[in-house]
């Protein structure tokens, strides 16, 4: 039920974002009617921005897996971007070992680039490729109880094991500016934040493997049994300049 509440809450946050996009689309024509045509300004050489994956923070706040992720984006000529992402996660997938427990924790980094095109005055759509590396440590236990009651419980422990994984990602991004001041569309605060989502398809390249119980989850990638492994991130972007 706790998990279900988390999903409902994150859905609600996402729908607010969608509503923002819808509002922007509806109000754009009236804005264009009200303003006089002006000469197009040359595209800015560089626009840095910071990105916060609030979906992961919600998961952490709800008491499930601990995940934190942020990134720095450098947008060149308002179209081409380079991105560096860093994250930290402690994953405890319940069904990694049905008769035991499993934890994988560590850090991960991604670097990548791509193309992001504006689709209207406030929204953008992007496509890009990332290369990611994760260094992590996993451990776990499994328990067996005697069916005949003739012996003590058997416990199998493993780890901590140090591991590394590398993978590549194809990412599609959609985002829209947050209109916090609806009365003044041109207000500075309406240019500071944007909200969006990113759909990633992750392709595992290599990861350290072990006998008996192999690595199950990699921070930043998720379950290695899924390859490719899709993911959806929801984020808030801050444009300081």
């Amino acid at each position, binding site marked *: 039920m706790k*998990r*279900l509440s988390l*999903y*409902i809450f994150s*859905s*609600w946050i*996402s*729908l607010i974002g*969608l*509503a923002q996009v819808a509002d922007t689309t509806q109000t754009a024509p009236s804005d264009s009617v009200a303003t006089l045509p002006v000469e197009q300004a040359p595209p800015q050489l560089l626009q840095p921005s910071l990105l916060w994956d609030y979906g992961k923070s919600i998961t952490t706040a709800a008491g499930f897996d601990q995940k934190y992720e942020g990134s720095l984006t450098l947008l060149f000529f308002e179209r081409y971007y380079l991105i560096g992402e860093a994250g930290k996660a402690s994953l405890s*997938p*319940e*069904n*990694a*070992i*049905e*008769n*035991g*427990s499993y934890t994988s924790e560590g850090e991960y980094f991604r670097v990548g680039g791509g193309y992001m095109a504006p689709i209207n005055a406030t929204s953008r759509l992007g496509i890009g490729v990332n290369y990611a590396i994760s260094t992590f440590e996993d451990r776990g236990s*499994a*328990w*067996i*109880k*005697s*069916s*005949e*009651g*003739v*012996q003590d*419980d*058997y416990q*199998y422990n493993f780890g901590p094991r140090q591991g590394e994984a590398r993978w590549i990602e194809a990412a599609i991004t959609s985002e829209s500016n947050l209109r916090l001041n609806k009365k003044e569309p041109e207000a500075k605060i309406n240019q500071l934040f944007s909200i969006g989502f990113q759909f990633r398809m992750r392709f595992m390249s290599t990861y350290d493997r072990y006998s*008996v*119980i*192999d690595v199950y989850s990699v921070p930043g990638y998720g379950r290695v049994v899924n390859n490719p492994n899709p993911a959806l991130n929801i984020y808030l972007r801050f444009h300081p300049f």
Partner: protein
Amino acid sequence: MQNKFYILLFWLLVAWACDPCDDCGEPLVYDPKVKLVFINQDSAAHLEDSISRVTDSIDNNKLTLALLKDTSVFFADSLETIDSLVEAGETEYLDKQEALNHTIDSLDTSADSLSSWNRQLNTLKSDLNTIVKVISDGKVQLDEVILVEANKQVVFEDTLSSFGFPLLLADGPGVSSFEITLADEQYTIAFEYTTFEEMGADRILRVLATDVNVTNYTGFDSLKINCETCLSNETTVTVYF
């Protein structure tokens, strides 16, 4: 608004489908086992001898019965001749007529008794064959089984044709010895095997035993193992006592 509802519904369905299991983390209730079949070879051989003797008696009785019937038919023919003479007025044959009638009645009575005895022998033979089949199937009731290393009793309440003897979950080479009481007789058997852990596709960690060998036994006439390199759960040890 309706579109947002459908998006939310879709999101919740995906979340529900991806939710991990509720009973994860519970210990697996399990023991690796080796199957034992008990064949009471001495009793079976003794019964086979009895069945052979009963079969011989039945065959002899059949021959005697045929002889009695032939004799009875012969005397019946003689009686017809004497009857015709007596009817013709030759009264000196009356004594012989009475003697023949008495003899034929005695022969018929003996034949009936012999037939009845043969039916009883056939029933006895059928019962003995059933008992031999039960013994050959190994259906026995074990009075008591003790796992020596754990000093614990293994309970088998029913009469069965095979018994799963639990093996100790050792790390690496394992030894499990049993003291068995069967029909007030004491027997012992000791197994040596190798254990290893295996993670199944169902994400359950099991401890399996393989290369099961009988290192020592007392009380049994002989024994036979179907496979010495199989997993323990595929190994059947047939003991003859």
